[in-house]
């Protein structure tokens, strides 16, 4: 007798809907280009290009509002692989990769590409080790998976508690970056802009939850990809006569390497430096490191450890784990991760082209020039506080200036330096803001899902009605956004620091626990609980201690504290698993079941059997 597993019907009009959205965005850009030529003020153009897409996203989020629990938490499990891949890609890139990674590459060189490799490898590792099993369980959240695996409320509660701090750190990092970009267009303090950004995110996802997040993220990724592609292709054609910037900037890279020597831009460089020195400075700084020299900024060990830390953190990001349950079935979730790796890979190999082109224009046009002979675009960039040029502007004969750029917004300089129409400056900024909103929304929703499903419904009020569960989730969205906003405004640390700490905490807490839970029937409740606690506490303690002035262990920087925490967690989990009684038959069957792709999910089966009174309600 075969099982009748009903897969949800996918909306057949999705392609048309997003084609309309894409057309609307391109029409907006073209219209603003025309209006710029007709004399519309730049301030107005900038505000329109930034605000209109945000209103589009909010409209999408409100339009797909829902009162269904399945739609709110797992988008009805009918998101096709391509669109889920777009959302997965949006969750793990965000403003941190688009803005801060590009800036880090610009100042630190190719060694910082370890972050990009880590993100792609993390998605691959998620696919290989976790995706099929997570989708087969059908859990709404990562703590929900642990609850199904171990049938334990304590593990569920502990995992839920450990999800929240890293998600808040990532949300705060994204808000800081978004506010920094928006400040070039909207004449408000960055604190106010962060509040507006948080409010926009809440408005986008509060009514529809995961459904709103999914479709608004797809729109945001479309804006991100087009917004980056348009200016970079234009600049690539101008400099290399070819439209594929990812593969054609080789000559420009060689020119930059020669300019670094001829214009004495490497005078501060003296071999590899620590990871904190390479990544922590986000204020105005000059070029000092070679862009194309392997291990000119980081040692080979730091390079590899950075990849590993980012990889294990990305592989178990709770916001990604929740998204694995939004596809119709296991093959769809694999394909969606394939799409996610493709989109993320294309993005990650495009961003260095941005950095190289920016450095080319700055090094060739500004460095070593007399202050009185600087090109017009540099004066505009200075007036916008994008760059600073030291030197006495009142005494043209005083000598050469030194160009200082801010790492986290340096990529915005490219359209100005290439003397493209002003609207392209706004297009790059709107692409960056789209990335920020997409990732930030994912973090907030992951907190809300955990609060509603794993704490309120599973632990405090098992008989809660669907409307009550949705109310708690929406309230949690508002509270989490407020907490993240306070953290963003109060934290003195730069966004890359916050993001790497969050990745370290997530990887150290959940990677060993999830790996052993899925691949070993021997893992016990106490082992996994202790392992998660050990990983989280070891990583957090290492960060706090080293920030307080204590020396590092084995030279491992606290930005990759997950490298310390993950082995601690793994050791505790493995030792306690070995000391635990042998795996029960139930655990063995669970492990076998989640490795088979077909049939209904374990969560759905539990609900079905509970409805017939055969087992307690999960």
């Amino acid at each position, binding site marked *: *007798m*075969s*099982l009748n*597993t009903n897969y949800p019907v996918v909306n057949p009009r999705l392609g048309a809907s997003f084609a309309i959205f894409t057309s609307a965005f391109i029409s907006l850009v073209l219209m603003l280009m025309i209006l710029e030529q007709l004399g519309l003020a730049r301030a107005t153009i900038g505000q329109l290009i930034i605000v209109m897409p945000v209103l589009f996203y909010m409209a999408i989020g409100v339009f797909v509002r829902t009162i269904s629990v399945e739609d709110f938490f797992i988008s009805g499990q009918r998101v096709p692989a391509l669109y889920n891949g777009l959302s997965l890609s949006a969750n793990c890139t965000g403003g941190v990769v688009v803005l801060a990674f590009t800036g880090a590459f610009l100042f630190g060189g*190719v060694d910082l*590409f370890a972050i*990009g*490799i880590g993100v*792609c*490898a993390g*998605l*691959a*590792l998620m*696919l*290989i*080790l976790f995706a*099929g099993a997570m989708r087969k369980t059908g859990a709404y959240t990562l703590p929900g998976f642990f609850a199904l695996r171990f049938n334990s409320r304590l593990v569920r509660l502990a995992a839920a508690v450990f999800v929240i701090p890293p998600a808040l750190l990532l949300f705060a990092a994204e808000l800081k970056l978004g506010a920094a970009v928006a400040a070039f267009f909207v004449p408000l303090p960055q604190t106010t802009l962060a509040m507006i950004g948080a409010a926009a995110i809440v408005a986008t996802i509060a009514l529809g939850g995961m459904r709103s997040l999914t479709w608004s993220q797809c729109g945001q990724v479309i804006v991100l990809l087009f917004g980056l592609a348009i200016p970079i292709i234009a600049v690539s054609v101008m400099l290399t006569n070819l439209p594929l910037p*990812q*593969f*054609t900037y*080789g*000559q420009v*890279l*060689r020119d930059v390497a020669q300019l670094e020597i001829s214009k004495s831009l490497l005078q501060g460089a003296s071999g590899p430096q620590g990871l904190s020195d390479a990544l922590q400075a986000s204020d105005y700084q000059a070029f000092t490191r070679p862009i*194309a020299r*392997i*291990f000119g900024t980081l040692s*080979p060990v730091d*390079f*590899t450890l950075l*990849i*590993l830390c980012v*990889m294990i953190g990305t592989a178990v990001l709770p916001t990604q784990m929740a998204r694995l349950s939004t596809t119709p079935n*296991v*093959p769809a979730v*694999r*394909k969606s*991760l*394939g799409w996610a*790796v*493709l989109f993320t*890979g294309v993005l*990650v*190999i495009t961003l*260095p082209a941005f950095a190289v082109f920016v450095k080319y224009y700055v090094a060739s046009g500004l460095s070593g020039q007399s202050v009185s002979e600087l090109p017009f675009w540099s004066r505009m960039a200075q007036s916008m506080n994008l760059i600073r040029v030291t030197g006495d502007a009142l005494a043209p004969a005083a000598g050469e200036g030194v160009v200082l750029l801010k790492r986290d917004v340096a990529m915005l300089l490219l359209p100005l330096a290439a003397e493209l129409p002003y609207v392209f400056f706004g297009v790059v900024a709107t692409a960056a803001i789209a990335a920020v909103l997409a990732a930030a929304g994912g973090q907030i929703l992951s907190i809300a899902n955990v609060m509603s499903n794993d704490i309120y419904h599973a632990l405090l009020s098992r008989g809660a009605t669907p409307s009550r569960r949705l109310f708690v989730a929406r309230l949690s969205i508002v509270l989490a956004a407020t907490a993240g906003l306070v953290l963003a405004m109060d934290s003195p640390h730069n966004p890359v620091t916050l993001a790497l700490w969050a990745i370290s905490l997530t990887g150290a807490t959940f990677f060993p626990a999830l790996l052993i839970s899925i691949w070993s029937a021997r893992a016990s409740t106490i082992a996994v609980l202790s392992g998660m606690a050990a990983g989280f506490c070891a990583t957090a303690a290492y960060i706090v201690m080293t920030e307080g002035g204590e020396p590092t262990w084995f030279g491992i920087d606290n930005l990759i504290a997950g490298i310390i925490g993950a082995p601690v967690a793994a050791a505790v989990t493995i030792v306690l698993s070995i000391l635990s009684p042998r795996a029960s038959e139930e655990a063995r069957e669970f492990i*076998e079941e989640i*490795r*088979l*792709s*077909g*049939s209904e999910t374990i969560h759905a*089966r539990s609900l079905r059997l509970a409805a017939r009174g055969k087992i307690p309600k999960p």
Partner: protein
Amino acid sequence: MIIDEEQKRQHLRRSKRIVVGAVVFLAAIIIAVPVLAQMLKTYVFLRFPMDYFMIAHGAVFAVMALVFWFISAKERADSEINTITPL
């Protein structure tokens, strides 16, 4: 189609081999790419220094290729067994 226990065990063993192979290849990418990059730094590809190209492009392409291979291998394994099992 209902699968028997022996088919299920064969499928699980095959899946495990695919996963282990993929993890080993991923580890090899992370370790081998920087090592190979230093060895090949004198070569040029598409006007990029070869060491730069391997880090900034090669590693990502290798991960993409691994992902596409893994998906097709798992699909083949699943389709051969047509994994629908009884409760």
